[in-house]
Structure formats: structure tokens, C-alpha cells
């Protein structure tokens, strides 16, 4: 557990990725609520004006924090990653990736009104199609849903699913109730029906304190704590039987970190052995379920300071199919193009960057000409 204080990497334009690499987590920004106005229905357009509704910018990513946008990716003015041309150059050309999945983090999940959430989710998804997918053929996207109301969420999934460039459904890791709870299951049924993955991204609705022991004082605690939130959601989805009911469902944990996974599975498996009488429908060990149904994005690599320890961790994960390449653009997780940890064996790099994303997102290759 030595301190990891690396010297800043010199900029290096060789990302070292194989051809056909897929970036599973980038974050185009809604530049302002004004940009959504053409996509909002009359009632909500009027509401924005009459009520002075502000930007839906969640505290999960404070606009000027060093993590929210890497220094060399900042825009001259306005929000980062808000221009499709810039994103194409920085996030795709910059790494030589062939496809990238856009996960739009706009604070829709925080809203208390389910009607407003549904209206803004529709607007964001339509904006994503017109302003991004139609203009940059290398982009795919996740469907933003009003998770506040499961019927509305399913309606939105069904509405967007006709466009095959939507490859997954986006949820935040901290909502009102754990994601395994049965009232969420229609979302998973819709995902399975349409061949969409379910992507769970870091972030909170802040309807519960962002730690299980109350509100922290510092943003650093909030961000570090995302990993614990992912652990509890994985517990919930496994214990409630989501993967027993939906055996073909693929759940992707985004910006989750992954080094916590082995230790968490050891603990959960020990308790499953002792307490499975409580959840008899869970008929496989948690680790087996994860290896067949759950994937995690690469960045941030909350890894050990040395390659040998990182390789041990991969051994602990007992599969080379779990990780999906991501840059987490424009969040600051690494310097230069060093998104892939240095020194990994070439076959593992290929699995992470190409094979695993293809195997996870059923729709990903359908739209490649």
C-alpha cells in the first residue's frame, strides 16, 4: 500500500491500442439547458423560462474540479466535451479508437418530479441522436431514462430502441432504492428484449446520503465512495435474483474502479455459503454470476503501483473477459494517451479493447457498415 505518486507522463501519441478498439465510456456534455430547448415539449420549454430552471449539473462532477476535465481537454469557453468535432478529435482520433459509447451525465436522475425527468430524458436522447450520433458515425450512446418511474423508463427505452445506435441503458449507481429491487425489473426485461446492455455509471441522485454513514465533508470522499456504491449494487442485483430471472442480461459498471471486485466477491461468496437459505433462487456462486453477466470499465484504474501486483489482481479476477476499455473522457484519470496500463500482455489488451466490448454490447457491431 505504498503511495502512488507517479511523475507526470510525457505526452505520447501512441495509445498502443489494437485496430478496432472500442471506448465504452465517454461523456459528451449538454452545453446548456438552451441546447435542449428545441427538443423539449412546449410545456417544458415554457416551464424552463417561467420558472428559471437552471442547468441540471450534479455535484458528482463539480464543473472546475481537476477530475471533471483534464487540463488539455478544457474548452476555450463553456463546458468541456460539448462540441462534436472536438470530441471526435480528442476522444476518438486521439486514441485511434473505432467506436466510443457516449454516456451523457446530465442530472436527470436527481429530479424529484417524474414527469420532468421523463421530459428531460426524452430531450436528451433526441439531442443525442441529432447533435451527436447523426454527426459522428463512430459514436454510439446509452439511453437516459427517468428511473424515478419504471413505466416511464420502459416507455423511453421502447421509444429509443428502434435506433440501433443506442446500445445500452444508463443508470446511476446511487438512486432511491437498490437496483436489484424488483420494481426495477421491467427495465431489465426491456433491456433483454431489445438486446441492450444495462450500464450503471458512477454518480448519485443524492436522494440518499452518498455514503452509507451519512454526508461527507469533501468531494474526495464522495468520489472515492463510488466504489462502495458499486459493491452494494452488485450485491443487490445478485441477491435479488436479477441474473436468475434475466440470464442473458449484461450489466456494465462504468467508472467504477475494478480492483475492489475480487475482495468483494470473496466476502459475498462467504456469506452466500452461510446465508443462501435466505435467497434460494441464487443458485450459482456470485463470482460465477459476475463472470457471465457483469462487466466493468477500465478507467479509472485504481490499481497497485506496480505491474506485478496488477497482474496478480487480474489473476484474482479469474477471467480476462471482465474489463472493457474506456478513457472516461474528458475526466482526468491518466495523462497523454496512457489509458491502457503499460506492460499488459498483448492478448489481454486485445480482449479488453476489442473482444470484450464486442461480446458485451449486442448491438455494437450491427450498425458498423
Amino acid at each position, binding site marked *: 500500500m505504498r503511495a502512488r505518486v507517479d511523475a507526470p507522463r510525457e505526452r505520447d501519441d501512441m495509445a498502443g491500442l489494437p485496430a478496432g478498439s472500442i471506448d465504452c465510456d465517454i461523456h459528451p456534455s449538454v452545453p446548456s439547458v438552451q441546447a435542449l430547448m428545441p427538443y423539449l415539449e412546449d410545456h417544458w420549454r415554457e416551464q424552463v423560462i417561467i420558472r428559471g430552471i437552471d442547468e441540471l449539473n450534479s455535484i458528482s462532477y463539480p464543473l472546475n474540479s481537476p477530475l471533471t476535465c483534464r487540463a488539455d481537454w478544457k474548452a476555450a469557453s463553456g463546458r468541456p466535451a460539448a462540441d462534436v468535432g472536438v470530441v471526435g478529435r480528442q476522444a476518438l482520433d486521439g486514441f485511434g479508437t473505432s467506436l466510443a459509447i457516449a454516456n451523457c451525465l446530465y442530472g436527470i436522475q436527481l429530479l424529484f418530479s417524474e414527469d420532468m425527468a421523463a421530459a428531460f430524458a426524452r430531450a436528451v436522447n433526441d439531442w443525442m441522436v441529432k447533435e451527436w450520433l447523426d454527426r459522428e458515425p463512430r459514436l454510439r450512446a446509452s439511453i437516459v431514462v427517468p428511473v424515478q418511474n419504471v413505466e416511464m423508463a420502459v416507455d423511453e427505452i421502447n421509444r429509443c430502441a428502434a435506433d440501433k445506435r443506442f446500445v445500452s441503458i444508463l443508470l446511476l449507481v446511487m438512486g432511491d432504492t437498490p437496483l436489484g429491487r424488483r420494481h426495477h425489473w421491467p427495465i431489465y426485461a426491456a433491456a433483454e428484449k431489445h438486446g441492450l446492455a444495462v450500464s450503471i455509471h458512477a454518480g448519485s441522485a443524492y*436522494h440518499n446520503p452518498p455514503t452509507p454513514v451519512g454526508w461527507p465533508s469533501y468531494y*474526495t470522499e464522495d468520489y*472515492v465512495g463510488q466504489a462502495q456504491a458499486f459493491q452494494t449494487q452488485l450485491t443487490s442485483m445478485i441477491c435479488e435474483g436479477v441474473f436468475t430471472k434475466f440470464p442473458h442480461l449484461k450489466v456494465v459498471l462504468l467508472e467504477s*474502479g475494478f480492483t475492489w471486485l475480487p475482495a468483494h466477491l470473496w466476502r459475498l461468496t462467504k456469506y452466500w455459503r452461510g446465508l443462501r437459505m435466505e435467497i434460494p433462487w441464487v443458485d450459482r456462486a456470485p463470482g460465477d454470476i459476475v463472470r457471465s453477466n457483469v462487466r466493468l470499465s477500465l478507467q479509472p484504474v*485504481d490499481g497497485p503501483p506496480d505491474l506485478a501486483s496488477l497482474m496478480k489482481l487480474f489473476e484474482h479476477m479469474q477471467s480476462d473477459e471482465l474489463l472493457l476499455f474506456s478513457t472516461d473522457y474528458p475526466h482526468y484519470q491518466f495523462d497523454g494517451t496512457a489509458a491502457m496500463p503499460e506492460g499488459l500482455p498483448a492478448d489481454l489488451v486485445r480482449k479488453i479493447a476489442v473482444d470484450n466490448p464486442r461480446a458485451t454490447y449486442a448491438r455494437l457491431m450491427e450498425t458498423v457498415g
Partner: protein
Amino acid sequence: MNEIRSQALSEAPAASRLLIADGDIHPAKKGAADFHPWLEKRWRDHIDEYGSPARQGWQAGPAFPKSQPNASRRDAYPPEGGRPGSSLAFMQGQHLDANSVGLGILNPLGSGQGVQNPALSAALCHATNEWQLAEWTSKDSRLKASVVVPYEDAVASATEIRRYADNPAFVQVLMLSRTAEPLGSRKYWPIYEAAAEVGMPVGVHAFGYGGNPVTPGGWPSYYIEEMTGHSQCQQAGLTSLIIEGVFEKWPSLKMVMIEAGFAWAPSLAWRLDKHWKTLRSETPELSMAPSEYIRRQVWWTTQPMEEPEPRAHLEDCIGWMGWDRLIFATDYPHWDFDDPAQALPFRVSEEQRRAFFMGNARGVYRGCGG
């Protein structure tokens, strides 16, 4: 799974015949009357009329039904009656003598910690402390007590800690992990100040009810989720202690994380270091990387030990943490008891074995020979 298998005294390998430390033993009351010698009539009547609720909804019993009555081993009921853990004689025979426990740390639960009425919480905690002296440590010198504190009232807690400053029967301060605010919150700082002053480590035992859902995404459905979730609560508490500057302010303070696993520690330390490095403009008070505070000031009790397959993966984790970080614990008399004869299922050096089973504990607990 509910049958009772007799746990015959194993022919333990010679090395485990060493005296061992047990960092987590749970003594139980025979009944409420056990505390009456130290509880004013006002509070006895109050409990009788209003109970002693602690931020969860049941008049009696835990928020999630446990897997066993009293969460206990079914073979741990004393022959003379009473709850598991309530008979010193039976505990001596079944556990302390049988497992060669030379140093046993008492961590009483259900002791008024987290009780909503702050004055009642303080009164119950004090009664618990006097009861530990009268019924346990004075009758068996292998057992050492924890100062149970009403931690949601940190000033009252500090008073309780200083009350036992010179009493060698008390070797640590005890908190529970499910606090109302994260452990590093300034609200709790008088506890750390007093603990550092008297030279006791602060043990943070899993459980309790702080009023927050046990996950940051709301209440789960099952006991297994709550049990697994204690690990995430501990991780959040430790994150808070580091980032909010408790270890920076009290460099001699020791923390012992109890009954929430430990294999998560390397990953949490790596994650803390990585993001602290990016975000360090937020916490300029911190003079070291988070992992360095952990290395200097944090220990873990072992039970419930993670059980990877193959078991050697756990050895990697302990290697990352350091063999000097772990204090063996059984959680006697609870159902998920770890047996010292089977606790290290891989080859270790004699030095590592001695540190794990006794040496580390002696170095951490006040006045225990470190």
C-alpha cells in the same frame, strides 16, 4: 444447515498451541437486570415505559432478522441457561481454554450505543463498562475491556474515556461503524482526542444504526446484503477518517477495524491514493498520501476472513497490507465464528504466525505488552 455439529477439541498443530489473542469476543447480559446496579431508577423506568430505540423501527430485535437466534452458534448456549456469551464459565471452557486464548478483547454489543436519547445512551454505556469490570475482567485476567462510548455525543464519550484513563482493564475505546455522520466528521473529534490522550486504540465494530440506509442507494431487502454491506460502511468510515484529517491531527491515534473483513484494504488504499493525488487541492491539510496514514495508524481484526479459492489469493492481499496489520479474532459466540485452527489455510512463516495470532494485538491494545 441448522444441525449442530459438535466441535471436538481439535488436535491442533503444535504452532497453534501458542497462546493467541482474540480481538473480538462478545459477552452478553443474562438479562436487563445485569445493568441495574449501575443504572439509575429513572433510566430503568424509562426503558420499561419507552424502550431504548436506536434509529431503527423495531421495539426489539435487529432491522433484518438474523440467520440464527441471537446470531449465535447453536452450540454456544450455556448449560445453566441464558444467552450465548452470558456465562463466563462456559466461555472459558468452550472458547478461552479450548482455543488457548491468552488475550481476549471484550466488545459488548447492544450496550446503548446509538440509542436515540443521548442521556440514556450515555447511562447504558457507562453501566456496560462497570459491568465488564464486575462480571468479566475482574474474574478472568485474560479478558480485557473496551470503553463503550455513546459516540453520537462525543463530549460525553470523551468523559467516559477519561474516566478509565488509569484503569488497566480497559485497553481500547469501542465505536460501531454505522454512525450518523462519517467517522471523520468533526462531531466525533473529542473521542479521538481523548483516546489519543489516554493511549487507547479506537476499535470500530461493524453494525449499529446511524439512521442512514446501509447502502448509499437505499435500503436492501436481505440480511445477507446488510452483512455484506458492513464492509462498505467500514470503507466509507475509513475514507472519512483519512480525508477529514483525523490521522493528520492525531498521529499517535490507532484505529482497529473490527468484523468487516480486510481484503478490501489494498484496493481502497490504491483508490484513495489515486484520487487524492488528482484532487489534493481540496485537502491541503493532508501531509501524506492516504495509504501512508493507513500504514501508520490502522489495523484490522480478521473475522470474518475472506475465503477466496484458491486461498493463496488472500496471502497476496495480506502481503499488500503487511503482516503487521492483522489481529486474529473469532467473534465468539456468533454464528460466523472463525476457528483459529483453520484461519491460515496456507503456509506462513513462524514470525508471521506469531504476529497474526498475538504479536500485533500486543502492540495495538493499551498495556498489553507491546
